[in-house]
C-alpha cells in the first residue's frame, strides 16, 4: 500500500520582487499538488519570510524544493509533514 505525503509546511525566504500569487500559482501547477497557502510572516527590505503550506493527494517534496529553487526562494526549514496511507478505509 502506498504512503503519500499530503501536507508539507515550509519556512521560506523569498525575494520581495516575487509576487506571492505567482509563487502560489506555480507551485499549484506541480503534479500531486492541489492547494497552496502562503502567509507572509516578516517583511525585510529585499526579502520576505513566508510560511508555505502545500497540500495535495501526493506531494513530491523534491519537486516543490526544485520549483522554489528555480524561483529564487531559500527554504530555511520544513516545519511539518503529513503523510497518509493510500486506499486505507476510514
Amino acid at each position, binding site marked *: 500500500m502506498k504512503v503519500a505525503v499530503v501536507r508539507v509546511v515550509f519556512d521560506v*525566504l523569498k*525575494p520581495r*520582487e*516575487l*509576487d506571492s500569487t*505567482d509563487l502560489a500559482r*506555480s507551485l499549484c*501547477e*506541480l*503534479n500531486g499538488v492541489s492547494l497552496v497557502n502562503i502567509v507572509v510572516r516578516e517583511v*525585510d*527590505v*529585499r*526579502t520576505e519570510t513566508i510560511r508555505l503550506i502545500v497540500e495535495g493527494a501526493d506531494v513530491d517534496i523534491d519537486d516543490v524544493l526544485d520549483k522554489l*529553487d*528555480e*524561483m*529564487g*526562494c*531559500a527554504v530555511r526549514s520544513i516545519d511539518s509533514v503529513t503523510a497518509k496511507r493510500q486506499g486505507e478505509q476510514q
Partner: protein
Amino acid sequence: MSEDSSWRERLGLLLDYLDATDFSKIARRYFALNFFDGVLTMMGFTLGYYMVGGRDPHAVFGAGIAASVAMGLSGLVGALMTEMAERERDLHELEKSLFKDLGNSVIAKSQRMAAVLIAIIDAAAPALGALMLAIPLAYPLVDMLGYDYAIAASVAIGLAALFALGSYLGSGSRRGMLKYGVAMLLAGVSLAIITALMGVVL
C-alpha cells in the same frame, strides 16, 4: 502538465518578474531620452550642415545614416554593459540577503532578459529618431525632391516627432499632453535658432 504549458508558464513568470523589476518604466525612460537624442542630433547635424553652406545631398544623407548607425551601436553596447553591471550588482545584493546562489533562478534570467531588451530599446530609439529625419534626405539623390525641400521636410518631421514624443510623455503625467508636446517642440525650435546663428557666425 504538458511541455507547452510548462514553457508558457515559465515565460509568464519571466514576464511577471520583468514587471516587478520596473522594466517597463526604465524601458520607457530609455526610449524617450534616446529618441529625443537621436532626433535632436540628426536635426542639429542637418541644419548645421545646411546653414554653413553644405549643399551635397550625398554627404548629408550618407553622414546622417552613419550617425544613426553609430548612435544605435553606441546605445546597444553602452546600455547592455551598464544594465548588466547594475543588475548583476542587484542580484548579488539579493543573494547576500537570501544566503543563496541565484545563478539559475528565474530572477537571474529575467534580469538578463531585461538588460538585453533595454539595450535593444536603447539602440533602436536614437537610430529610429535619426533615420526618420534621414529619409527625406534620400529623395534628392533620386531627383524626387529638391534639396532645400528635403532639408525642410527633414526638419518638419523632426519637429513633429518631438511634439509626438512630448505628447506621449505627457499622456502619462498630470500636466497634460499639449504642455509636454509644446515643451519638446520648443527644444527643437531652439536648436534650429542656435544652428541658424552658428551658420551666420561660422
